[in-house]
């Protein structure tokens, strides 16, 4: 039963479409005719591939079995055709074994220590799931982080290129400083004069009872440098709170998100800025829309990219001078009044 079918583009397209149309009866047939007995990889391959329709070109590299049961071959080839385009979407999910993606998690293809390789489908599911969960349970900060990682790939590239063009940013990319309790010299920060950036930052951490160690490591970004960029963005978030003078209540967080959205254009920031206010009271919402958001957007537009600042070298700089350098004005109202 040798049927030689040419696989130039037009023919491939027609076959692809017709296979989708044919999948219906095939599924019905497959449900009615369960494959009894022990399943072995050999039988898998026989069922799913056929000598006749082994494609020429780059569509697939499965090994050819030596025979296929006659009546199964035709149906099987249709299934193969259908599932092969899906395999790209599933990140190389190999039809016969399905091991390639799973094997990647352990050791071999990790780009950085916490990396978890994910297929495009998994990224889409993660983005949708994390967005929903973040809205449902605002305390799940890890979901916001995951949303940022899965949706921000192209924006992170733009950010990284822009960091490379700036001299201070390029230094950050090269030296890769991290902000955590281990790397911060708390005694030195405490000894700094009043009004300096380091002192204000420390005060912010103490007043709001936050610690720089609560940021989860990046996991789902498939590029090592971009993973660092998003990690730096997360660690710099607290600095932004200090610069803008915003507390860590929900109103303050939304204002900072608006600022970040204008500055970085990360999809996660944009979504957070747009959907964050959903849970606010009407009064806070009114204040937010009338005064805080315009102020945040103005400052975001005016300031150069905040990721380009080497904050670790600016602890001694007075906060007022730093704000002037970036063009950030004082907040329009006292945030303590609102919380």
């Amino acid at each position, binding site marked *: 039963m040798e049927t030689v079918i040419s696989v130039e583009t037009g023919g491939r397209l027609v076959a692809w479409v017709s296979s989708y149309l044919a999948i219906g009866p095939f*599924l019905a047939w*497959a*449900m009615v005719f*369960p*494959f*009894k*007995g*022990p*399943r072995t990889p050999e*039988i*898998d391959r026989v*069922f*799913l591939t056929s000598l006749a329709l082994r494609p020429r070109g780059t569509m697939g590299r499965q090994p050819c079995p030596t025979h296929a049961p006659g009546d199964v071959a035709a149906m099987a080839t249709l*299934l193969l055709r259908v*599932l092969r385009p899906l395999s790209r979407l*599933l990140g190389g*999910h190999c*039809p016969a074994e*399905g*091991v390639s*993606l*799973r*094997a990647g*998690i*352990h050791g071999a293809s990790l780009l950085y220590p916490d990396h*978890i390789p994910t*297929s495009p*489908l*998994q990224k889409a*599911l*993660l983005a949708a*799931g*994390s967005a*929903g*969960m973040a809205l449902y349970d605002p305390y*799940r900060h*890890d*979901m916001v982080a*995951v949303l940022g990682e899965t949706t921000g790939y192209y924006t992170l590239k733009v950010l990284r290129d822009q960091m490379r063009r700036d001299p201070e940013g390029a230094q950050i990319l090269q030296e890769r400083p991290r902000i955590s309790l281990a790397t911060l010299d708390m005694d030195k920060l405490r000894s700094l004069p009043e009004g300096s950036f380091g002192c204000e930052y420390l005060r912010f951490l103490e007043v709001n009872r936050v610690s720089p160690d609560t940021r989860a490591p990046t*996991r789902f970004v498939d590029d090592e440098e971009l993973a660092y960029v998003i990690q730096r963005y997360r660690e710099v978030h607290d600095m932004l709170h200090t610069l803008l003078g915003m507390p860590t209540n929900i109103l303050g967080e939304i204002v900072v998100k608006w600022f970040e959205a204008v500055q970085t254009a990360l999809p996660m920031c944009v979504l957070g800025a747009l959907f964050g206010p959903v849970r606010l009271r009407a009064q806070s919402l009114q204040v937010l829309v009338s005064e805080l958001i315009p102020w945040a957007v103005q400052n975001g537009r005016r300031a150069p990219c905040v990721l380009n600042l080497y904050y670790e070298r600016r602890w001694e700089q007075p906060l007022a001078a730093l704000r002037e350098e970036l063009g950030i004005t004082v907040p329009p109202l006292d945030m303590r009044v609102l919380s």
Partner: protein
Amino acid sequence: MAAPRSCVLWSYCVRRWSRLMRTGGPQWLHSSLPGGSLGVRLLSREKQATETHFGFETVSEEEKGGKVYQVFESVAKKYDVMNDMMSLGIHRIWKDMLLWKMNPLPGTQLLDVAGGTGDIAFRFLNYVQAQHQRKQKRQLRAQQNLSWEEIAKKYQNEEDLLGGSRVMICDINREMLKVGKKKALDQGHKAGLAWVLGDAEELPFDDHKFDVYTIAFGIRNVTHIDQALQEAHRVLKPGGRFLCLEFSKVNNPLISRLYDLYSFQVIPVLGEVIAGDWKSYQYLVESIRKFPSQEEFKEMIEDAGFQKVTYESLTSGIVAIHSGFKL
């Protein structure tokens, strides 16, 4: 037919000794004897050779126990929610089918190993209670009066609603047991339950104690499955039944493809979104692939000494219930 006590003691000692020897033995044994170093080298070579799988990773056997413990410690709180999400609620039907297959009568002593959150145990209690009530109703309808003891107990509110059935829940993980105890309180199960911290490979029970031994979705996490099966054989009474509900190999290739797709693409994502833990659920789906097929597992059960071993595949092989008898 019970083995004499000295024989039991001897076999226990032998087991302990062999375990000790396997992990290198006490120091004095090595240093004092001239052949001691050779003995150590032999033992250490044997130790290096014992590696096993943790999902698709290869780890040493000592490590696997610890890693599995950590996995279940981190998933314990969301275990039931995740089960519902992952199996779309079908796991309840599977567990119900296990109970229907078991068909316990009042008076059965059940040992539920790796039964941390108590799903099987609670179903068992409900089943046995319903059976007991039905039996009493039948007796009354057939104009057989209850015995005086039963009537007296009823008036004193001391009657045993379970008709003498007891279930012992054994799990190696403290967190899972904690979650299970809380669930028992919430669902109102007070009588007939006992919670024991124990290792399936070395159960802290005497021989010939239980009528039924169940292990639901637990045996694939055990490092030495054959030892767990031997322990099961040991603690069962003659005539006792071994039941195992576990993920198995899907027989239909189309469904297998869809199942693989769902397992590897969706389940870790669900784990991350709902429980905040990708790696544990990756381990879960990988450990399912590593578990032997229905036939292989049946042979392993037969090797442990069980007779009349059968299996039933549910949902076209996604799970299978294996059953064997100690005769």
